[in-house]
């Protein structure tokens, strides 16, 4: 993995996520998130996980973000709606807390001894490799994720459907 590419993509990812948080305008924030998803997909490509990279774009940038934007457009927030009461204490506290966490993590990460991972074998990250793992070794995980998605669907239907008696 080329370190320069890694740092480029990583910087874009982090920068865009931070921008997303700082944006006042939700649509612009969502756009930043999309860009960060794309550079995340770039990171996956660098890790030779092409399938996951495409999935990332397809699912997150494609479907989920479109729904996000859809909802934001539905709300159609005005400028006045976006103004929240400034609470300096909370902002200050959040800044301190996140700063402390970041410092902590940076310090921790610098102390990690280098971990050597095995070189990826031929066929790593291809659909075949993922598929055969998914249906043999991780078959339980696969099935349970099926249940998880089913729960999601049931939940959406349950919460979204109209009341019969009104």
């Amino acid at each position: 993995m080329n370190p320069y590419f890694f740092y480029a993509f990583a910087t874009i990812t982090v920068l865009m996520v931070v921008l997303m948080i700082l944006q006042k305008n939700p649509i612009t924030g969502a756009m930043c998130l999309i860009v960060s998803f794309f550079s995340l997909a770039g990171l996956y490509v660098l890790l030779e996980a092409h399938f996951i990279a495409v999935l990332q774009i397809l699912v997150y940038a494609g479907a989920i973000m479109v729904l996000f934007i859809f909802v934001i457009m539905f709300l159609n927030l005005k400028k006045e709606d976006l103004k929240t009461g400034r609470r300096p204490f909370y902002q200050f506290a959040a800044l301190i807390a996140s700063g402390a966490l970041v410092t902590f993590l940076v310090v921790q990460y610098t102390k990690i001894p280098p971990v050597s991972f095995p070189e990826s074998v031929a066929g790593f990250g291809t659909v075949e490799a993922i598929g055969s793992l998914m249906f043999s070794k991780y078959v339980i995980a696969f099935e349970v994720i099926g249940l998880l998605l089913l729960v999601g669907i049931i939940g959406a239907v349950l919460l979204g459907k109209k009341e019969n008696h009104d």
Partner: protein
Amino acid sequence: METNIQNLLNILVGGITIWILCAGALLCLLIDALWPRKMSVPVYTIGILTLIVTLCSAWYQWLQPDLPAAQDLLVIDLHTLFFITLVVLVGILTILNALGYMQLHNDLTAEFCSLIIFSIIGMVFFFSSDHLLINFIGLETMSLSIYVLVGSHKKNFKSNEAAIKYFIIGGVASAIFLYGVAMFYGAYGTLKISELAMALPTQGLDYLPKTAVAFILTGIFFKLAVVPFHFWAPDVYEGAPSPVTGFMATGVKIASFGFAIRIFIGINVLDMPQIQNLLVVVVVATFIVGNLLAIVQDDVKRMLAYSSVSHAGFVLFGMLAGFREGRYEPFSSHTVMFYLLGYLLMTLGAFAILSLMIRKRSEATHYTDLEGLGHSKPLLAGLFTLFMFSMVGMPGTVGFAAKYSVISLAVQNGHIGLAILAVVMSIVSAFYYLRPSVTMFFKKGAGGCPVIQEIPFTSSASITFCAFTVIYLGLNPDAFIKLAKIAAF
């Protein structure tokens, strides 16, 4: 190919209890969809039958001399079976409570039942897997079902608020948990708990796993609602429909502790002094904050929310009590298990009664609503008082036996200060636990109809069961403590 089929067969036979649950949940959904008329009773019957069959199969497996060899992703050992028994018990009692509750509120939805069972499936995967990936998926399945259940009272504003609150905070907690899991993977290149146990050095851990442990602990603390991660609890507990609150208060905590025991005792992470200090801080804070804030509540459900916070602290204290001079004594998690069983029975009993309280077609659990209940429904009020006594830890109830076993273990292992704090806080808790009973019996109602009018059959069944077991286990705890000792890590 051969090995694959063998592997699948092993999984099918070994995890039979889980597959029964899955089949039952799907059957509930199908029956609801295909049944000609909108009748929820068959669905609930199927749900309860499923859970009972699961319980039987878990007992059957328990009695097997040699359990199937541990799979990578699904470990069926006595620990798992014990916790399966607990969560399935929670499920049965919750469905019984929910049937009563929904009958009173005229709001019977069949999906409720399958969501409860799906949530139980998630819990089972959460604590029964040796692979952190499956643990996480189980956690998510459990949580997602509960988010929906919390918000299932769609017309109730508080229920909506609770669902959103729980969803956002739960999502953050899951993310933090996942971050910790990813750190483990980054440090050792594996997610299997057994392999992590081999890879972790026994002395002087690296920085990354320490951080990972802290993150995973944070995720679990959110689910347990211990201080300082308890802020969501009172609002969510208040907003959720009462049976769901009972389910959250017991099921989620039981599953989280099942997982916590498996991972932290499994890989000896708790032997790190930093983590122990962290636990001590959390336990002390939880004892104090949980008990003191419970005093000032005006709503029984909010009070029980804080009570569940302090009980979670007690269970955590039970885990901490297993340490003697910084090393974890093997097989001492049985106190935690027994405490969870007792906590389950008394909490669900109390929530079964709370589920019956209805006024003007909505829940009425404010203290003022309880006034005069001791005169209109003396037996029910008496049973509620029994559960409250058990929560305080009156001798003769299961609460006493549970607290006694935790505190005696702590004293044995030299945690005198914490033990004293626990006793003091139990005494403080008597103040708020007895307040509802005092209100029921000694305050005259301000007129109007009593808050409990009819008692559906299912609710009375679950209340009777809880009351009976609370007393029975309070009088002979040894039988179950023995069982827990067999299953203990």
